[in-house]
């Protein structure tokens, strides 16, 4: 590989690949999640997704942290320290997750997953949400 080819690959193709894969990720990853009681293949999901599902976070907060029975967690999750404090000692009806049930490392990975959830579309961009 010539230097120019290498530079082209490093500075153009690779970033482009990353960008495209990030853009494509939600659809790709979510395609695998609809079978939500099935086995989780880590290769299909971002970091922390396994911990998020296996510890039952999805039950109240949805697979994408969108909330329903519980509050929305993503996008833009709480800073890790606040998030961790609420997981360990919730202020409302959420059950407490002690270190015996959820390690710091697992909690960090869950937070990582929440951080990776892409921003929701602008409501004005969705005609179905323009209800008179």
């Amino acid at each position: 590989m010539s230097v120019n080819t290498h530079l082209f690959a490093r500075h153009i193709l690779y970033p482009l690949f990353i960008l495209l894969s990030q853009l494509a990720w939600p659809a790709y990853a979510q395609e695998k999640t609809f079978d939500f009681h099935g086995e989780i293949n880590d290769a299909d999901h971002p970091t922390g997704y396994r911990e998020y599902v296996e510890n039952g976070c999805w039950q109240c907060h949805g697979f994408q942290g969108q909330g329903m029975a519980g509050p929305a967690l993503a996008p833009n999750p709480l800073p890790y320290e606040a998030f961790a404090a609420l997981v360990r000692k919730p202020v409302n009806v959420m059950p407490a997750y002690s270190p015996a049930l959820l390690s710091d490392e697992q909690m960090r990975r869950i937070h990582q997953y929440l951080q990776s959830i892409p921003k929701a579309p602008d409501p004005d961009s969705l005609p179905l949400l323009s209800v008179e």
Partner: protein
Amino acid sequence: MTNRRDFIKGVAGTVTGVVATAGLSVQQEAVAQQTAAPEKASALPPTHYEANMEKGVIPDGYTEEQAHHYFVQSPGSDFMVDVVKGLGIDYIASNPGSSFRGLQESISVYGGNKKPEFLTCLHEESAAAMAHGYAKIAYKPMGIAVHGTVGLQHAAMAIYNAYCDRVPMMIFAGNHMDANDRRPGAEWSHSALDCIKLVRDFIKWDDIPLSLPHYMESTQRAYKVATTPPMGPVAIVVDGHLQEEDTHGKVPAIPPYVPSTPPHGDMGALIEAAKLLANAENPVILAGRAARTPVGLEHMVALAEALQAPVSGDGRMNFPSNHYLSQGGRALVRQADVILGLENRDLWAQINSMRDLVHRTSSRVARDDVKLISIGSDDLYMLSNYQNFQRFQPVDLDINGDAEASLPFLIEEIKRQMPKARFAKLKDRADKYRESYQKGMEEERIAATLGWNDKPVSLYRLSMELYDVIKDHDWSLVSQKSSAQNLWPMTRHYHHIGGSGGAGIGYELPASVGAALANREHGRFSVAIQPDGDFLFAPGVVWTAAHHQIPLLWVMHNNRAYHQEVMHLQRMASRRQRGNNNQAKIGNVFEDPFINFAKLAEGFGVYSEGPITNPDDLAPALRRAAAIVDSGMPALVDVVCQPA
């Protein structure tokens, strides 16, 4: 020993005597009654055969004794049907049973199967829950016919829901009181000394009539009790012999039914309530089952606007969701200085909060100095065993009476007592709530975007795709409303029907069919967002909808679980610091294999699509299904959804 036939004759003779004192013969009275009955409640003209039988003509080839042995000229159940017609009961939902075979035949043949029409149900629980949903749209009870024993046991859960939800229902329970005439076998196991005992803890009234005059009086009384607030189910035992024995046309006159006026709150107390509300800085209205009718909905708007007070609560369709005074949240209660509760299911839980932790602690949400006013009819009829009356909440002014009936006077009194100096404050309050309403709706729109493209489908996405399909119809949500429908403009009294009342699963599917039946005559488009676990209790009602051509669109909220129980188990496991998601699923999820609701519906003869997992596939599927509903038939779209 007097046999059954002689006993009936004796009763008929007694009736003859009673009626004769009014100056008319029994037959003249009966004819006069038939003539005077409202057109819609009258039976069809008899067939030639029936006319001959009524006249006492003996069929060719039979002696009088043989005819007496083989044939019945005018069975008691015909009269029972006349009484039902006189009450304007349009439907009897039922799974057929021999203990009321006489009544079923009279409905079908003597009554022409119209008003009431016999609705074929595949489970008594379906019949009762259909009646529950129907009443919430039709504002009048449906009848159900059940075996007094095995049928009533099936129906009990749905009757309990209706009781908790303050919904009227007429239960006709077949039984055989006279042991001397019971056939061996089933007729014994289908008889009971007191079959209504099973449900007496959660109905308003019942009786076991021993004669047709007794039946007539008790059925009219039962209807009156059922439809007078607080409403609820009532039961009449229809004895097998009473149904099947010949009256020889000697039946009592059926007096026209006159409904009771609903109980009204005490005038003095309403004046005091108006004073407190008119002078309040931050009045708040918490509505439970406040609006029973379209007029009730109008009164709720008038009340809120007279006070410029926010209205919270959706136990029923109490208030237009697109009105700026439609508000929610604990903050309303926290800042209120006067709170008006209207037919609240659980006022305590709105004034206080309790946390589901190891030690269940509660705290007061409302201000200590808040003035609490309650208007409701629940205290007028309360039974002790089942605890659906919820926790006791002391109030400052407790007004016993139907809230809807009390509203017109309260509104006028508030207007009369409103100090002129308050008018500027009313405008300020209106401005404040207009602003918070707009803010709240914008927050709803943002919440709806979260997970918009998710697979499985988010509830907001499902809800808004569905609304886009039905918005140009005269629609009615015949299922429980969730926050995912917060963006739907719900303005009419039939725009949603509230929940089950008793939280007994298995209500939603049959209730949707009953409500859709009531909507059918108005040409409304009925739609239900149907939970999967609820669907599975008695899915045969899907066939009932197809058989009776009841247009209704079911959109499955299929999260493949009793998901609430998944969350409960996770809570237990977390509290005990053991177990995770996999343990929480044990006993609670529908997997290995998944259940295919589209195929289930197809098997019942209903158009169906799904399971749909890609939200982009929703709109075309919903439109195809809606076209089926527009043609007058039910349809189902199975959608795999996000969990909660």
